[in-house]
């Protein structure tokens, strides 16, 4: 069974002040597609490379199944880095191209033939196995490259931003191809991307990292509905969640003219932070209300997308201007320059401690 465990794994680069990856703790299930996502420098690629054996591990350990692989060389870990730059050899057949790594590893001919046939079937290349690569289209050639990784039957697939060099249309296409392939193969996969939309569409679970520290690992649904802290709340979801610091007095917070009740524990936290609390509302959870009943927002730009429209505006909270994004009905959107009042839809408010950023009960 190929589970993958990061057990308080740490990577500290020589001379660095803080770890690039700080005591990372994740357990990845057998056959799971886990995506590591975060902004540039968050440690996602470093974590993947630690798993691959390309990066030293300075603390903690890494396991594949029951095996502690922390100090094993990359080629002894039974992993495959997919989408490395595989060459396509013109004089060999497609089958030979896919299987030659097994050949040089000394595997018996019939095993190679079997594995190649399996992979060709999964990749829809069966009819090309005995043909030369020049008969293939660009997309088919890329699948031969995948085939090279597949025939090795590794325990884990590792992919490091494989789509970053593709144009938007090809990216979406290839994304679904990869996801479908992984589902079919059932091989545990760890995938790195900086694109949170990609992470949310592809992963069984998503792990968000920031400054080397794991922020949250969860299903896309859960992460979207219950972000654990302000960073995850603002990072996941496009357009981004509106995050504002508002007054919270007693058991109520003031969202402009709207008064929203909050639980006692949350109110206590707010009290300790000078009666301030951070409120998060997703654009689709902003409702237009009457004058004085919500947060007054001056409309700067309206993005009309047919059924929906996105309103980009500015609101003032205690003298502080905030950028506001709200989704409205596309048939009668507000005008630029207009003032609109927004209040959060009931039950769709996220509360965070202003001091720590941690999620609070709402």
């Amino acid at each position: 069974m190929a589970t993958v465990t990061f057990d308080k794994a740490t990577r500290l680069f020589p001379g660095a002040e803080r770890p690039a990856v700080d005591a990372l703790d994740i357990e990845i299930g057998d056959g799971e597609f886990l995506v590591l996502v975060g902004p540039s420098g968050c440690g996602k690629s470093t974590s993947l490379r630690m798993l691959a054996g390309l990066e030293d591990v300075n603390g903690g350990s890494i396991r594949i199944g029951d095996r502690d692989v922390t100090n094993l060389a990359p080629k002894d870990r039974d992993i495959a880095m997919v989408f490395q730059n595989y060459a396509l050899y013109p004089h060999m057949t497609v089958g030979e191209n896919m299987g030659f790594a097994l050949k040089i590893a000394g595997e018996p001919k019939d095993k190679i033939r079997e594995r190649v046939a399996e992979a060709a079937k999964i990749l829809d290349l069966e009819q090309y196995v005995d043909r030369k690569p020049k008969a293939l289209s660009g997309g088919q050639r890329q699948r031969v490259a995948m085939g090279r990784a597949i025939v090795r039957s590794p325990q884990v697939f590792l992919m490091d931003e494989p789509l970053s060099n593709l144009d938007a249309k090809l990216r979406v296409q290839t994304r679904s191809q990869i996801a479908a392939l992984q589902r079919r193969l059932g091989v545990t996969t760890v995938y790195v991307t900086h694109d949170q939309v990609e992470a949310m569409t592809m992963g069984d679970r998503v792990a968000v990292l920031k400054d080397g520290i794991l922020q949250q690992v969860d299903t896309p649904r859960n992460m979207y509905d219950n972000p654990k802290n302000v960073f995850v709340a603002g990072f996941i979801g496009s357009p981004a969640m509106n995050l504002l610091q508002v007054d919270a007095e007693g058991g109520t917070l003031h969202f402009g003219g709207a008064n929203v009740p909050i639980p006692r524990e949350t109110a206590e936290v707010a009290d300790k932070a000078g009666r301030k609390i951070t409120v998060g509302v997703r654009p689709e959870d902003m409702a237009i209300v009457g004058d004085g009943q919500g947060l007054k927002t001056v409309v700067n730009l309206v993005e009309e997308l047919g059924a929906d429209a996105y309103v980009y505006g500015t609101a003032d909270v205690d003298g502080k201007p905030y950028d506001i994004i709200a989704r409205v009905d596309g048939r009668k959107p507000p005008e630029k320059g207009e003032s609109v009042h927004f209040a959060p839809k009931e039950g769709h408010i996220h509360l965070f401690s202003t001091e720590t950023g941690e999620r609070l009960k709402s």
Partner: protein
Amino acid sequence: MALQLLAAPSDPALLDLPWGTPLEDWPADQLVALPRGLSRHVVRFVRIGEAVYAVKEIAENAALREYGLLRQLERRDLPAVEAVAVVSGRVDDSGQPLDPALVTRHLQFSLPYRALFSSTLRADTAKRLLDALAALLVRLHTAGFYWGDCSFSNTLFRRDAGAFAAYLVDAETGELHGNLSEGQRTYDVDLARTNIAGELLDLDAGGLLHSSIDPVEIADLVVERYQDLWRELLGAETFDTGERYRIDQRIRRLNELGFDVAELTIVTDIDGRTVQLEPKVVDAGHHSRRLLRLTGLDVEENQARRLLNDLDAYRAAKDVQGESEEIVAHRWVDEAFEPVVRAVPKDMRGKLEPAEIFHEVLEHRWFLSEREGRDVGLMPAALSYVADVLTHKPDEQAVLGSRIGSPTVEADPWVEDDEPVEP
């Protein structure tokens, strides 16, 4: 079209190339038919003035990244092709954007590996190519550069006194770190082994590999050679204090390999009896640097060693022990080196690099002298060499289909009929 050019100071004529046309559609009269090797991207060669450039169409961030890496390699004096420019903002006639292009300068006198053997690749050529590749990998690794795709196809080779010097061509998968971890190094070498095995198997499938070669065996050699070199360079060595001559030996061995020892860590144990020796920050180019300093000649490492040997022999023969090294060196250039190079008629100067010609003349001189039982002398050997040997050699200044007599070089490896050029 608002072209954007990120470029090192280079030929402004680059701007005149048909950037509004997809690279694979560039007209043949603009192109130079150089052997292309196996690339994932569209690659074409163009000539501007005296120089030949390689143009590769790739996505923007990949192009910028590779350009940056190649410039860094250049700054660190590592053997790689020279990055010239990234051309972005390309659009075709209908206003559709085209991928940017990375432009690099083709190395003069360099050859892709497929051009280095006629009919089939033989074991000794393969081993020499491997040696060059292993040495390049070691050099890159000591500088903290992880290649990620070391292969014959991603390398250009130059002759170096009978051996080869290898140059990195493709840095797309490269990474520059302070120091490489053991995992990174071993993985990089393993990748090289896999790629080389693939390339040899491909030659085999195309009937271009000599039957005596076992692709896997040869590919394994690159790992062995790399490890030997690495150990030689950076392995710690322990010996008794009485054996201090071994320090000198170690340094000499490293110099022989062309590496400079910048520092040594010498640690004696508490008793002062055993000594541990670990060279640090070794950098190749020891001989070529010395020759450059003495004569201003910029040549490959083995060539430099050869010329320096001849320089030493010249010194001894002229009995000028009292004079300064630099003065003698200049006299040697005037009286020995340049006359040989000038003995080659102008129309044959494109055949081999001057330092390589000199090396071959020295070989020829030895051969003739052996045959005649006496030293035939340098100039007679040079003239004999030009008349009897050089005339029959193909040009290597650029392996151009149109410039060399009639050998047909495999311009497109995807075409079935291959006829490699004579070495």
